[in-house]
């Protein structure tokens, strides 16, 4: 990773973004994606998401036309070590932004992707939130592709909803007995050491602390499910709101999903305490039957039911979140909305 150029092609080069190139990068985003995207106007946001402190440059590859020096494509990524550089389990790269100027050199997009493969070498690679065209490319490259399933649970003490649209009682899944030894409470840092997971991505205590506790843009709360006092799994949550109505969002998960079967009473209590309409959970790799047993319903997105995902600004539509990944083995794998950089703010407050 010490080379400044990954590719030196006939018409363009691909290089890691250095400090002095971020202005050009931001301009490229503004012109080719959206001038309101935080990547177009907030260097602090870019630093937080992509600045690699050990290399003193950015986890962003730029394709530059040789003749003009103009940026013609970018790809950004986050690797496992980004949130925990002490971890010896740096085994995953999440692709986050992949954008090519149109019209461009025809295969610059693939050249950028290939450069990340070269960076990742033989480790695992994935993405969350890719568009359909990128999905077709990943599929052709034999990635596992699909859409995260959205599960949700409404506050059963509420009779009318302003965020969820066209909700029917039939979506309520009534769980079994609420008498169980499981409870849901705010996690202590020591809990993070006590939870085990066989997922191929290693998420460490430092990962959760750096990514979520210290997040400057969103206030995340880490909850732990305990059985008889012992931590079983971790849920990373935050709140979205619109005109006084609130939604709880589960964005990350760590531990054994089995214990979720028993958390319906605890989630109902949390929804009431937070005066939230619903809690939702975008995920892949967790058995839907477990979540149904917990009292969640699946938003299949083929009815008129709407469980909103976008709140910046609020947009009452269902949102399908695509994913793709390629592993070096055949392991069971889970993906959540918070993986990669999918759970990022669309609006950055002034000063950031």
């Amino acid at each position, binding site marked *: 990773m010490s080379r400044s150029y990954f590719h030196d092609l006939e*018409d363009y080069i691909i290089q890691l973004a250095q400090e002095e190139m971020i202005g050009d990068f931001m301009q490229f985003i503004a012109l080719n994606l959206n001038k309101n995207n935080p990547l177009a106007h907030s260097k602090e946001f870019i630093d937080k998401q992509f600045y690699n402190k050990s290399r003193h440059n950015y986890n962003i590859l730029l394709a530059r036309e040789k003749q003009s020096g103009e940026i013609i494509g970018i790809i950004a990524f986050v690797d496992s070590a980004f949130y925990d550089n002490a971890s010896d389990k740096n085994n995953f790269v999440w692709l986050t932004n992949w954008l090519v100027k149109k*019209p461009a050199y*025809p295969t610059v*997009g*693939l*050249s950028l992707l*290939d450069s990340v493969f070269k960076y990742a070498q033989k480790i695992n690679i994935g993405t969350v939130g890719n568009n359909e065209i990128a999905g077709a*490319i990943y599929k*052709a*490259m034999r990635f596992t592709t699909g859409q995260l399933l959205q599960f949700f649970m409404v506050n059963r003490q509420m009779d009318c909803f302003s965020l969820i649209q066209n909700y029917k009682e039939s979506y309520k899944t009534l769980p079994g007995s609420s008498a169980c030894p499981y409870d849901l409470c705010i996690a202590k840092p020591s809990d993070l050491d006590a939870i085990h997971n066989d997922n191929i991505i290693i998420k460490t205590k430092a990962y959760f602390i750096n990514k979520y506790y210290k997040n400057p843009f969103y206030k995340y709360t880490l909850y732990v499910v305990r059985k008889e006092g012992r931590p079983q799994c971790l849920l990373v949550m935050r709140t979205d709101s619109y005109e006084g109505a609130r939604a709880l969002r589960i964005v990350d998960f760590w531990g054994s999903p089995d214990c979720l079967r028993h958390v319906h009473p605890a989630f109902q209590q949390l929804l009431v305490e937070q005066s939230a309409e619903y809690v939702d959970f975008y995920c892949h790799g967790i058995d839907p039957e477990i979540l149904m047993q917990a009292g969640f319903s699946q938003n299949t997105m083929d009815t008129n039911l709407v469980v909103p995902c976008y709140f910046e600004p609020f947009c009452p539509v269902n949102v399908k979140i695509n994913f793709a990944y390629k592993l070096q083995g055949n392991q069971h794998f889970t993906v959540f909305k918070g993986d990669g950089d999918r759970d990022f703010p669309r609006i950055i407050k002034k000063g950031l």
Partner: protein
Amino acid sequence: MEEKIREIMQVVFDQDLSEFTVEDIAPKNLPQWDSLAHLNLITSLEQVLEVEFELDDMATMMEGLASILKTLEKYQ
């Protein structure tokens, strides 16, 4: 082998390539050869030739027909 590959390319790119030299058949001379078309080409080659390319080779083959022919030598 070259003829077979040319036939596949003509279908994928929807263009008569009979007047092109091997060196001329490259993305810079075929505007329709973008990233997605390249992956369509790879998929077609894999199906017809019954091979499965490594990711590195998929990228290398973006250089053009000459590179594709050279890469295919590895798979024969």
